[in-house]
């Protein structure tokens, strides 16, 4: 294998990746060495391997965090281990953890002429012949024989083979690499941290075959450059750390709904004759209780399993206090003002930090935030979203290439833009229909018609016109959604939409909440691995987050407008909170705070997803929608599923 070939591996390919392949992958160039861990993944789920390896997606859940802690312990060098000569090598259930301590006391001289047994930790070996590279936690060396030990979180499963196939394949790969380097290696051990059991795994012919087949399969998938489809209704997804990125059931539903496909060819797992998947039962990987089977809903739609969290339960920190100073104190952020502590927030409980105007943030605090992947957003004092600080851009190059390819495809841009505008019009119509004191049938009908027209628009320019007309109709009716009480004050009423600067209180509030929303969509889009500046409907200019603004269209009425309505109708914010100046109206500091709190409450509210049927918070919806848009761009699903309430 040459170095150019291994360099090609660093450039992943995708369905839109004619562009990529032409540039980098020579035809037939095999991917470089396959890491043993990826052989584990490809045996567990091909899509998981693709996401982790080709798209460099990674996400922690409790299992990965625990797994890392177990490995950390394994990698810590300890004094040379002297194996007990009275004990035969590798008997079952030898407790490795206990052994380390026991052995320290023993001081028997090893038999002469053979080197003393010892333990090597964190061994990294590769075999170009096999095409495998393996990081091995522990290698026990005794006489001429070596035994690799792979540490695993959790308990030893009760299966005759001692462990499930993916783990055994990974271990087998380590054995094969060791053998290829000339070591005598008969078996490998899996050490299960939860019950401290060390389980010897037989390296038999079928396992070697499965391992070599996994190498071939992993390379083939990478070369193919198309993400494998999600598993169907699989219990494996329950414990998968990438489930919120993969969205298995969501993607399957949208794929099935979009086109009738011939049945997929048998997966790698199904091809392994000696390993009958069916026999594994409901929860073969011991990942915990299954979610109850989805109940069919009344309207006949099926409710999907919601495998990812319904809401992000960490909380945002907003700092608006002018002259405040945000510093790091241990594991907490501390907001101070003139040597007075204003408030504290635990880093572990913080989802994002938003700073308005003249607020200082120390380098230590910024670094701690970035290390934990907590985004920091900056706003002008007036609430204009200026920018953000994030640790690293997503490493999913495949997705970004697909986004750029899609943005230069006018037909796709138009198709996406039609959907965004139509959803915005329909969602504002729904808000009007539900909240208007006396719904204006003419306006509602007009919005309906404009929504239909949006879907037929021939070019972006006419779409802009349709959107503008719909906005005039909608905002013309906006005051009808206010309570009698609020409407008494004429100065509060909306006189059409105006901005930069807003000329009346309602416009000021709308601008402010749109700004918060564009911040959250920017963060959602970035989290999904997309470039926020490159949009499909909004054209990139002045560095505005065009893609975030695209996705924002359907959420403007649902989130921002409804927050403003709620704040006014419930008298959280009123006339008293505004001062008129020559340049427009200014909102008081308390109104800004109360509006931000109301906005956050809205984001935290659970809503039924119109397509998937499960309950999910608005904040999580933004991320799910951004990820689904990503799946459209890579060609996995054909239509962007809009978020529309009924």
């Amino acid at each position, binding site marked *: 294998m040459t170095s150019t070939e291994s360099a090609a591996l660093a450039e992943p390919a995708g369905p839109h990746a004619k562009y990529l392949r032409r540039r980098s992958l020579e035809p037939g160039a095999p991917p470089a060495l396959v890491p043993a861990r990826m052989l584990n993944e490809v045996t567990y789920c091909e899509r998981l391997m693709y996401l982790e390896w080709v798209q460099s997606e990674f996400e*922690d*859940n*409790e299992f990965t*965090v*625990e797994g890392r*802690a177990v490995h950390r312990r394994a990698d810590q060098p300890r004094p040379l281990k002297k194996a007990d000569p009275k004990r035969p090598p590798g008997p079952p259930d030898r407790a490795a953890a206990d052994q380390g301590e026991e052995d320290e006391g023993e001081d028997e001289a090893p038999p002469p002429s053979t080197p003393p047994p010892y333990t090597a930790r964190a061994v990294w070996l590769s075999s170009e012949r096999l095409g495998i590279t393996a990081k091995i936690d522990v290698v026990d060396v005794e006489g001429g024989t070596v035994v690799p030990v792979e540490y695993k979180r959790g308990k030893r499963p009760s299966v005759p083979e001692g462990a499930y196939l993916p783990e055994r394949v990974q271990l087998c790969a380590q054995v094969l690499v060791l053998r290829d380097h000339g070591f005598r290696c008969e078996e490998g051990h899996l050490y299960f941290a939860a019950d401290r059991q060390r389980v010897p795994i037989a390296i038999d012919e079928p396992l070697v075959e499965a391992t070599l087949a996994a190498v071939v399969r992993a390379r083939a998938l990478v070369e193919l450059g198309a993400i494998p489809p999600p598993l169907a209704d699989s219990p494996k997804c329950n414990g998968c750390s990438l489930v919120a990125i993969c969205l298995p059931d969501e993607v399957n539903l949208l794929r099935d709904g979009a086109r009738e496909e011939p049945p997929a060819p048998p997966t790698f797992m199904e091809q392994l004759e000696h390993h009958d998947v069916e026999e594994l039962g409901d929860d073969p990987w011991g990942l915990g209780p299954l979610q109850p089977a989805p109940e069919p809903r009344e309207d006949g739609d099926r409710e999907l399993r919601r495998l990812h969290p319904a809401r992000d*339960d960490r*909380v*945002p*920190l*907003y*700092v*608006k*206090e002018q002259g*405040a100073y945000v510093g790091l104190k*241990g*594991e*907490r952020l501390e*907001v101070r003002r003139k040597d007075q502590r*204003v*408030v504290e*927030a*635990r*880093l*572990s*409980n913080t989802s994002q930090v938003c700073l308005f105007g003249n607020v200082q943030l120390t380098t230590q605090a910024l670094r701690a935030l970035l290390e934990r992947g907590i985004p920091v957003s900056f706003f002008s004092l007036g609430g204009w979203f200026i920018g953000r600080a994030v640790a690293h851009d997503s490493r999913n190059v495949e997705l970004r290439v697909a986004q750029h390819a899609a943005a230069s495809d006018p037909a796709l841009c138009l198709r996406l833009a039609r959907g965004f505008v139509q959803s915005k019009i329909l969602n504002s119509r729904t808000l009007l229909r539900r909240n208007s004191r006396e719904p204006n049938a003419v306006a509602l009908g007009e919005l309906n018609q404009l929504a239909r027209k949006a879907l037929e628009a021939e070019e972006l320019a006419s779409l802009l016109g349709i959107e503008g007309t719909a906005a005039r109709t909608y905002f013309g009716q906006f005051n009808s959604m206010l309570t009698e009480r609020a409407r008494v004050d004429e100065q509060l009423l909306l006189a059409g939409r105006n901005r930069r600067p807003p000329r009346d209180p309602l416009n000021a509030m709308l601008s402010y909440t749109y700004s918060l929303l564009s911040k959250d969509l920017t963060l959602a889009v970035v989290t999904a691995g997309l470039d926020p500046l490159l949009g499909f409907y909004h054209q990139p200019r002045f560095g505005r987050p065009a893609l975030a603004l695209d996705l924002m269209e359907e959420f403007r009425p649902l989130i921002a407008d409804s927050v403003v309505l709620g704040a006014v109708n419930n008298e959280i914010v009123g006339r008293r909170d505004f001062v008129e100046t020559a340049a427009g109206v200014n909102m008081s500091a308390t109104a800004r*705070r109360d509006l*931000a*709190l109301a906005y*956050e*409450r809205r984001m*935290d509210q659970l809503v039924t997803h119109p397509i998937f049927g499960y309950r999910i918070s608005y904040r999580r919806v933004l991320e799910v929608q951004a990820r689904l848009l990503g799946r459209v761009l890579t060609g996995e699903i054909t239509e962007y599923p809009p978020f529309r309430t009924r």
Partner: protein
Amino acid sequence: MRQTYIVAYDICDPKRLRKVFKLMRGWGDHLQLSVFQCELNPRELVELRAGLGQLLHHDEDQVLFVNVGPVEGRGATSITALGRPYTHPERHAIVA
């Protein structure tokens, strides 16, 4: 789902005690001497336990975890106090 935990520790060495206290401050509210109230999801519980595991002397020190129940259920209602008032932590955006 987030659960409320009462975490109580008994650490035999003052230097380790300070480290444990500092770590605990990052995960919960200090209720009493050596007692914290933490609201943790499964992943955070693993992280906290792993962090503590690296600080403790496993033969001398001890940390107890008492699961009081889900944050939006028993976890919020089952703690009451005598003497100094106890306020239940609220989960909403912090605006300063």
